[in-house]
C-alpha cells in the first residue's frame, strides 16, 4: 500500500509532463500544419520557382540565376521600383504627419470628441475597391468634384489619374486619406499612456503648448510613431490595390504609377511568367527586409523606451 502510493507519486509528474506535451502538440497542430503548407512551404516553393522558367502549363526547367539576371537588366523593374519608392517617400511621411496632428488634437478635452474620432476613422474600414471607385470619380478631369472646386478658385485642374504627371499625386492623396485612420488610433492609444502630470508640471514651469509638444509629447510618443512607421512602410511598399483599381491598364499614367507588386501580379497572374514573377517577389522580400533592418537600426537614435 505504502509502496504503491510512493510509486504513483513518483510517476505522476512524468505522466503529467507527457500529457502536457501531447496536449500542446494537439493544440498547435492545425496552425502549425496550415502555416507549414501555405506559408513556410509556400515560401520555399516560391524560392525554388524563382530559379525556373515555370509558365502557365506547369512545365518547367531549371535555369539557375537567369531570372535574377533578367531582373537586373529589365528597365520595367527599375521603373516600377522607382515608382514604388516615390510613392513610399511621399505617402508615408505625409500620412504619419497628418496622423500625429490629428491624434494630438483628438486627445484634447473638447466637446464632440467621440463624434470626430468615429468619422475620422471611417475611411479605415472602407473597402479599397469602393474607395478607388469614388476617388476615381472625384478626380475625373471633366466632371470630378475636385476640378470643379479648383475651377471655382480659378485653377484649371489637371486630368489627375489620367495625367502621367499628376497620377502619383492623386494616389498619394488617396493613400493618406485611407491610411490616417488606423495610425491615428494607434497614436491616440500612445498619447493616452502619457501621464497628465507631466503636462501639468510643464504648465507650471511656463512651457507653451508647442514647447510641451516637442519636449513631452513627441519623445514619449516615439515608440508608437515607430510602430506606425514600420507598419506604414511595409504596407506602402506593397501598394497594389489602388493602382490596379484607379489607373487602367491602358492608361498613359500607368507607366508613372505601376509599382513593383503590380509588376509581380502582371507576370504571375496575367502573363503567366511564373518563374520570373517568383524572382520579383523574392526581390520585394529583400527590399522590405532591408528597409525594416535600417529602421530597426535607426530607431536607437530617436525612439525612447
Amino acid at each position, binding site marked *: 500500500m505504502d509502496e504503491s502510493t510512493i510509486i504513483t507519486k513518483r510517476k505522476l509528474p512524468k505522466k503529467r509532463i507527457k500529457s502536457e*506535451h501531447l496536449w500542446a502538440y494537439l493544440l498547435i497542430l*492545425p*496552425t502549425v500544419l496550415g502555416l507549414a503548407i501555405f506559408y513556410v512551404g*509556400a515560401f520555399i516553393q516560391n524560392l525554388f520557382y524563382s530559379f525556373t522558367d515555370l509558365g502557365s502549363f506547369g512545365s518547367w526547367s531549371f535555369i539557375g540565376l537567369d531570372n535574377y539576371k533578367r531582373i537586373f537588366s529589365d528597365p520595367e523593374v527599375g521603373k516600377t521600383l522607382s515608382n514604388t519608392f516615390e510613392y513610399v517617400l511621399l505617402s508615408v511621411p505625409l500620412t504619419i504627419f497628418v496622423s500625429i496632428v490629428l491624434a494630438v488634437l483628438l486627445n484634447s478635452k473638447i466637446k464632440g470628441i467621440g463624434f470626430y474620432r468615429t*468619422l475620422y476613422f471611417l475611411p479605415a*474600414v472602407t473597402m479599397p*475597391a469602393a474607395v478607388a471607385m*469614388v476617388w476615381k470619380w472625384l478626380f*475625373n478631369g471633366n466632371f470630378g468634384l475636385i476640378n470643379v472646386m479648383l475651377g471655382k478658385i480659378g485653377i484649371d485642374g489637371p486630368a489627375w489619374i489620367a495625367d502621367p504627371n499628376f497620377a502619383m499625386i492623386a494616389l498619394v492623396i488617396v493613400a493618406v486619406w485611407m491610411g490616417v485612420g488606423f495610425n491615428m488610433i494607434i497614436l491616440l492609444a500612445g498619447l493616452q499612456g502619457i501621464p497628465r502630470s507631466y503636462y501639468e508640471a510643464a504648465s507650471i514651469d511656463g512651457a507653451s503648448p508647442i514647447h510641451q509638444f516637442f519636449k513631452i509629447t513627441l519623445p514619449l510618443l516615439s515608440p508608437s510613431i515607430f510602430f506606425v512607421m514600420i507598419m506604414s512602410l511595409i504596407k506602402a511598399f506593397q501598394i497594389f490595390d489602388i493602382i490596379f483599381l484607379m489607373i487602367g491598364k491602358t492608361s498613359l499614367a500607368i507607366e508613372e504609377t505601376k509599382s513593383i507588386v503590380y509588376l509581380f501580379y502582371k507576370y504571375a497572374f496575367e502573363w503567366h511568367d511564373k518563374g520570373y514573377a517568383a524572382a520579383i517577389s*523574392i526581390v520585394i522580400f529583400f527590399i522590405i527586409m532591408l528597409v525594416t533592418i535600417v529602421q530597426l537600426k535607426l530607431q536607437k537614435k530617436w525612439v525612447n523606451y
Partner: protein
Amino acid sequence: MEQRTYKKSIFKKIKNDRYKTYTHLFLIAGLLITITPFFWMVLTSLKTLGESTMVPPKLFPELPQWSNYLEVQNTLPFMKFYLNTFVYTFVRTIGQLLFCSMAGYAFARLEFPFKNAIFVVMLSILMIPGQTFLLPQFMIIAKLKLTNTITALVLPGLFSAFGTFLMKQFFMQIPKELEEAAILDGCNHFQIYSRIMMPIVKPGLTALAITCILDSWNQLMWPLIVNTSIDKMTLSAGLASLKGEHFINYPVNMAGAVLAVLPMIVIFIIFQKQFIEGLSHTGSKG
C-alpha cells in the same frame, strides 16, 4: 495679490477657449475632406447619368434615382457577392479565433520540445511580404481543384502567424496560480484552455476577430486570383470587375460602391468601441 491671480486665470481661460475654438475649426476642416467622398458617393448614386456629368455639378439630384441600385444588381449579382463575402469572412474569422487561440495558449502556457524553434519559424512568417506566398498558394489551390470555391477563399487565411502571436501575448498575462488550481482540480489542458482561459482573453479574441473581419471583407488580390467566375466573387473583386476601361456609368457604379461599404460601416458604428480598443491592442501587443 488676489486680484492679480483672478485676472490671470480669466486670461488663461480666454486663451484656453481660443485653443479649443481653433481645435474645433481645424478638426471640422479635416472632417470635410474625410467625409466628402462618402457624401459624394451617396449623392452620385442617386443621380441620373445626365445629372452626374453636369457642369457646374448639381449637389442634389432632382429626383433620387433609387433605380440605380436595381440596375447595379442587374449588371452584377450583388446578392451572391454579399453571400460569398459574408461566408468567407465568417468562416475565416471563426477558424482563426479557434486555431490561433489554441496555438497561442500552447505557446504561452505549456512546455513542449521544440517550442522555441517552432515559435521562431512562425515569427519569421510575420516579416515576409505576402507576395512570396501567393504563387505557390494559388498553385496548391489549383492542384486541389478548388479554384472558384469559397474553400479556396478561406483556406490559406484560416491560419495566421500574426493571430497566434497576438493570442499568445494575451494568454501570457494570465497569472500562473489560476491554472495550477485548475490542475489540482483535475482539469486537463484542453479544459483549462476552453473553460478557464478563453473567457479571460476575450479582449484578445475581439481584437483578432476585428482584424480578421476587416481584412477578409476588404481583401482584393487573393479573391481576384482564385475566384474568377462571377458567381463565386466577393464584393471587392466584383467591384473591381465593374471598373470598366472605356464607358463608365458613374451613378450605377456609385450605387455598387455604397452597397459594398455599407455593411462594414454599419458594423463599425455599432461596435466602434470594440473596433478602436481592438485595433489599439494590435498596436501595443503586435
